[in-house]
């Protein structure tokens, strides 16, 4: 009898508690499972999977941004799919196919607009973050790359085929577009610094990069690091590097060199090269730990089983890790105490202590690629 009473009491208390289940999202994240069109919701403190959600379409080269309240993840698929994932209900809240072929997106500083970079038809489309209704269509007649958000409800992006950079200002009712030509041959990716001041475009067709000072009255392209590969024969590029690892490492940026086994160090003020580090392969991501003390680097095929850690002060490789076949992406916890990385062909995520470099755990995942923690919601350009 007492037992039954206890059960009844438990039921009475449990029922309302379940209905008001509280899900805090600050240490959640998502992992892209690229071959199956699914997404894992993970808890980075627990080092565990919370849920798997399916139905995202073709997720090759997928990327994610988060709403300012860290409740929604916007997942950008290759097939033009823009999917709004609710992390609290672990289900798809909305989904549109907005183009035939897309390559990532961005969310405005106020969290109201989501922009998607498209290859086909080339251009950027901007959507209401709540409803996913089209707000603005900016056709470029070229494949767009390097789309980032900038302060003041702006988006900046560049074009692969035509070598242009566009700055779209969405702060007024009608979008104002500034179009800058002659940025360079075949821009392949771009980054914006955390302060929103500098937009730096990587060039595939030239030995160098192009930088913009977005604080200047007249915004114009400036070539930097011209001829950085001079004297060395460029190697075949089996995978385009990413420039997202903008995070300042001390007073320097670190960037992957295209077609060379090197990363380049750039002075954050003068934008001049201040050094380079020889690496194991062609770098794909060179990501600074949030405090800037170390930089972790992964590599293109066929060297993609390796990750190297470079000390920012000495510029030397201090650790070589061999996580397994096809390390695609790395994500630091917000304060940098751990790093998560995806081992695509090993079908797992590995988690490392960034102080001791010890492996702390593994999570199974089906051909995982991108890893994105909700802390990105509060950073420009991510």
């Amino acid at each position: 009898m007492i037992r039954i009473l206890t059960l009844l009491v438990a039921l009475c208390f449990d029922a309302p508690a379940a209905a008001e289940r509280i899900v805090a999202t600050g240490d959640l994240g998502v992992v892209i499972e690229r071959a199956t069109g699914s997404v894992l919701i993970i808890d980075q403190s627990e080092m565990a999977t919370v849920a798997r959600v399916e139905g995202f379409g073709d997720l090759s080269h997928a990327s994610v941004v988060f709403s300012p309240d860290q409740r929604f993840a916007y997942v950008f698929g290759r097939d033009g799919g823009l999917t709004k994932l609710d992390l609290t209900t672990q289900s798809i809240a909305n989904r549109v196919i907005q183009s035939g072929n897309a390559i990532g997106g961005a969310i405005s500083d106020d969290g109201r607009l989501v922009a998607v970079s498209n290859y086909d038809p080339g251009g950027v489309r901007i959507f209401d973050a709540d409803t996913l209704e089209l707000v603005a269509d900016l056709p470029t007649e070229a494949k767009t790359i390097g789309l980032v958000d900038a302060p003041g409800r702006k988006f900046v992006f560049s074009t692969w085929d035509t070598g242009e950079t566009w700055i779209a200002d969405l702060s007024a009712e009608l979008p104002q577009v500034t179009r800058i030509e002659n940025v360079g041959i075949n821009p392949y990716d771009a980054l914006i610094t955390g302060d929103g001041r500098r937009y730096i475009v990587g060039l595939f067709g030239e030995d160098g990069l192009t930088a913009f000072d977005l604080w200047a009255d007249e915004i114009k392209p400036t070539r930097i690091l011209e001829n950085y590969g001079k004297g060395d024969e460029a190697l075949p590029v089996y995978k385009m590097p990413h420039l997202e690892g903008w995070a300042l490492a001390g007073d320097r940026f670190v960037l992957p060199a295209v077609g060379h086994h090197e990363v380049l160090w750039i002075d954050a003020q003068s934008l001049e090269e201040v050094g380079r580090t020889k690496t194991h392969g062609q770098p794909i991501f060179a990501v600074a730990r949030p405090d800037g003390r170390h930089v972790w680097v992964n590599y293109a095929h066929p060297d993609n089983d390796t990750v190297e850690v470079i000390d920012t002060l000495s510029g030397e490789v201090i650790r070589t890790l061999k996580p397994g076949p096809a390390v695609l992406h790395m994500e630091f916890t917000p304060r940098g105490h751990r790093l998560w990385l995806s081992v695509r062909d090993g079908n797992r995520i590995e988690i490392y202590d960034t102080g001791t470099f010890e492996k702390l755990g593994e999570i199974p995942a089906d051909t995982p690629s991108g890893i994105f923690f909700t802390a990105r919601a509060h950073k420009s350009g991510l």
Partner: protein
Amino acid sequence: MARRIALVLALLATPAAAAEIGPQKAAVLERLVVQDCGSCHGLTLKGGLGHAIHPEKMQHYDRETLADIILDGVPGTAMPPWRALLTENEALWIADYLRAGGLQ
């Protein structure tokens, strides 16, 4: 009729060429096509930074031409030469695979 014979021959040639690659190697090559070619050409090969390379498009090329493109790349574009990583036989296997629509 001659056309039909040519087609039959072509179909016969495909498995014969593919047979020169063992099943283990074939699995490695398939993964390479889907994942690594896919990073530019799209996981479903419908295109990305690189052109679409699904079977309909690939019918416009014979297998030797495709193998040459794979091995030597296309100068002036982002298509790299894969010769350092693939043998001619492997490139032909990939050419057959693309033309036959191995992903379907």
